[in-house]
């Protein structure tokens, strides 16, 4: 992540959380936190406890983030952020937590048609991790049409083309899902299962081979001992943890999207 990308990210993060940006300079950002965000980021529960109990005037902090080393920012007092710095990581976590669940409607300009039906979609962004003694992740974005059961990939990209709003627009009405969201999730899980199973899993075969090799060495080490000592079993268990291949699917975020009927989606 480049420094200017960090700057841009912070700007959007603060705005999305209603923090006023007092100054947005070259390589730095000054912001006035809201009470809510002070609690989220500043880790001072005792202060807030005190204020709330005494009815004092809350004074959320003002922060300066420095995203680039320049002559100007050198003199600034503030927190220098870079990819990997604990503060940025904290902000990442906060963004993940605050952006997990969503419900949006497609915004439609009123035209001749009096009432436009909006159809429900379940959208999920998912991280798939292949894990043994090594690890690799990839992301998937899937959309499930909760009427027809049609599943489309790269759903998020398509959403980004649309104008979306949190309130149902005038002259629109929503169609009730035929597929309940709960079973929708199951359908998408099944879809991903099939997808993943068709992938190349030589990584797992190789891990298994490494595991077997080390296990053979271990057995040889203790071959002359009749009763294996405890450390044999400890070591054996740790080899399993080290090498055993597994696949983990976790949902990063997702929600319901009510969209206009599209010609390419069968009803």
């Amino acid at each position, binding site marked *: *992540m480049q420094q200017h990308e960090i700057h841009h*990210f912070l700007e*959007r*993060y603060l*705005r*999305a*959380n209603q923090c006023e940006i007092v100054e947005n300079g070259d390589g730095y950002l000054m912001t006035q936190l809201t009470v809510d965000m002070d609690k989220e980021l500043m880790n001072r529960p005792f202060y807030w406890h005190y204020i709330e109990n005494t009815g004092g005037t809350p004074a959320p902090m003002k922060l300066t983030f420095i995203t680039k080393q320049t002559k100007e920012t050198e003199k600034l007092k503030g927190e220098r952020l*870079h*990819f*990997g710095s*604990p503060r940025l990581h904290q902000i*990442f976590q906060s*963004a*993940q937590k*605050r*952006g*997990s*669940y*969503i419900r*949006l409607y497609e915004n439609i300009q009123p035209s001749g048609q009096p009432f436009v039906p909006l159809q429900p979609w379940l959208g999920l962004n998912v991280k798939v*991790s292949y*894990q043994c*003694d*090594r690890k*690799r*992740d*990839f*992301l998937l974005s899937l959309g499930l049409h909760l009427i027809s059961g049609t599943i489309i990939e790269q759903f*998020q990209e398509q959403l980004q083309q649309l104008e979306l709003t*949190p309130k149902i627009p005038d002259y629109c009405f929503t169609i009730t899902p035929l597929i309940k*969201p709960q079973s929708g*999730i199951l359908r998408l899980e099944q879809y991903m299962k099939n997808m*993943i*199973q068709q992938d190349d899993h030589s*990584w797992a075969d190789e891990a298994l081979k490494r595991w077997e090799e*080390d296990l*053979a*060495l*271990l*057995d*040889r*080490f*203790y071959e*002359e001992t009749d009763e294996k000592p405890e*450390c044999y079993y*400890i*070591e054996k*268990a*740790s080899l399993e*943890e*080290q090498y055993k*291949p597994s*696949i*983990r*699917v*976790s*949902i990063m*975020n*997702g*929600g319901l999207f009510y969209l206009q009927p599209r010609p390419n989606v069968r009803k």
Partner: protein
Amino acid sequence: MKVEIEFDSAWKEGFLERLEQDGPWSSWDLYQLCLEVSKRLSVPDFYGLQAPNHLPHLTPLPHQLEVAKQVVEKMNGKAILADEVGLGKTIEAGLILKEYMIRGLVKKVLILVPASLVSQWVTELNEKFFIPAVQQKKSYVWEQCDVVVSSIDTAKKSPHREMIYQQNYDMIIIDEAHKLKNNKTKNYEFVQNLKKKFCLLLTATPIQNRIEEIFHLVSLLKPGHLGNAAYFTEKYGKMRSLHADEHLKALVNKVMIRNRRMDTGIEWSKRNVETIVIEFSEEERELYNAVQSLKNISFGNQFSLITMLREVCSSREALFVTLKNMLEKHDGEAPPYFNELIGKINAVTKNAKAEKALELIQSINDKVIIFTEYRATQLYLQWFLQQHGISSVPFRGGFKGGKKDWMKELFKNKVQVLIATEAGGEGINLQFCHHVINYDLPWNPMRLEQRIGRVHRLGQTNDVYIYNFAVKDTVEEHILKLLYEKIHLFERVIGELDDILAKMELHHFEDYLHDVFFNSRSEGEMKIKMENLTAMIDFADNLNKGGKTYAAT
């Protein structure tokens, strides 16, 4: 093969709850930010290193990155890191640990190091790697903290031992692992019974004496890799060196990486060392003699007398502080020699060393660090230099982290001179400075080495100049000429001496020196004792060099 697929249900529960309660829902902006973060934090490849992207302020050396890559990609996270001293094994271990943490493969970590290095490891992991390592101080730490640093002596004792065995560690790191060369020890047994999913053993001397040592070390890491004990003794037991058997060497190199200084291609900048002998002024000499003559009257302990002599060599202010403290101990009742010494202190009008330092600083016309043992001298020097238009900043071990950084910044950007009382292993790098004045000398070679190590370390591109001050015909000159110069202290690479002293098991170097100086009845006797000491160090040094040829290359 068919791999189990596990679906994380955490999100699903939150979603169903929100459906029921009709919210709260995120904004579209936050939703997209969340996804962006997930993209940034996902690791796209089994291979390669992610850690350097997370540590932009750290510039690992090429051989350190290579080690980290090799351990992760080829050694499956179990390795003996056996670089020669001074090549940065801690950095390598930090990189590997960070890599596994970023990839989400390691969360719970146990780091076992010698007691004297615990806090240094904690600081380095926190500051250089942003790994929230914690020093084990209370027993709940084992359970509640994810990354714990402890000494092996603490860890192996009850109740710690039992608590550690209950934790599910993902990674174990052991520094100075050559202490585990003997499989009959309690330490060995303790480590053997630890669960080691990923494991790093750090040592500069994987083999010190016998070939079995490498067998025991490897068997901790990967039992069976070198066969079992019976097989190993039969096949290799008579060998003295790894070189003798290509097969064994190849096997060991599968689990051990050893870089040598000459292989790394790192050019060490030159170190120029100059001893500057200084003549006392007449008054200073009189003061020195007066202190020395206290030896003949029955005077407290030897320690304070020699300390006082060393103080005179530094500044009259340093001696004065000690005298004042002694007076307080006597409840204000001055011992008989007291007034005489105070009189002699008052008679001193100039400090010969300070004048020499001033002259030197003016001629250097570049950043200079002055090291002194005494705070009183530090204050005096700061005042003295100020009188001559040279501003300086003080530096003490006791400064809090922020103040240290501040002083360092001031020195880097604003003032010419930094006057430090403590080099400390506290990891401040002052590589932008190339001149060091040892205004007076510590009586512990390791501390002297640490001083030099502040500026002369890996990554220093300029030549470094070290000026050692010693007052003629004093204890100071003896220490410098009879000890430090004889053992080539100033020419050695940082870290070498540590190995030598460890081998000698000479723990109380300073006490030994005090004894030599105080209890020798003549200068001749003192010189002979010093020669014995340097001979011992030479011997250990040769042993070390001999020992190194046993190691795998």
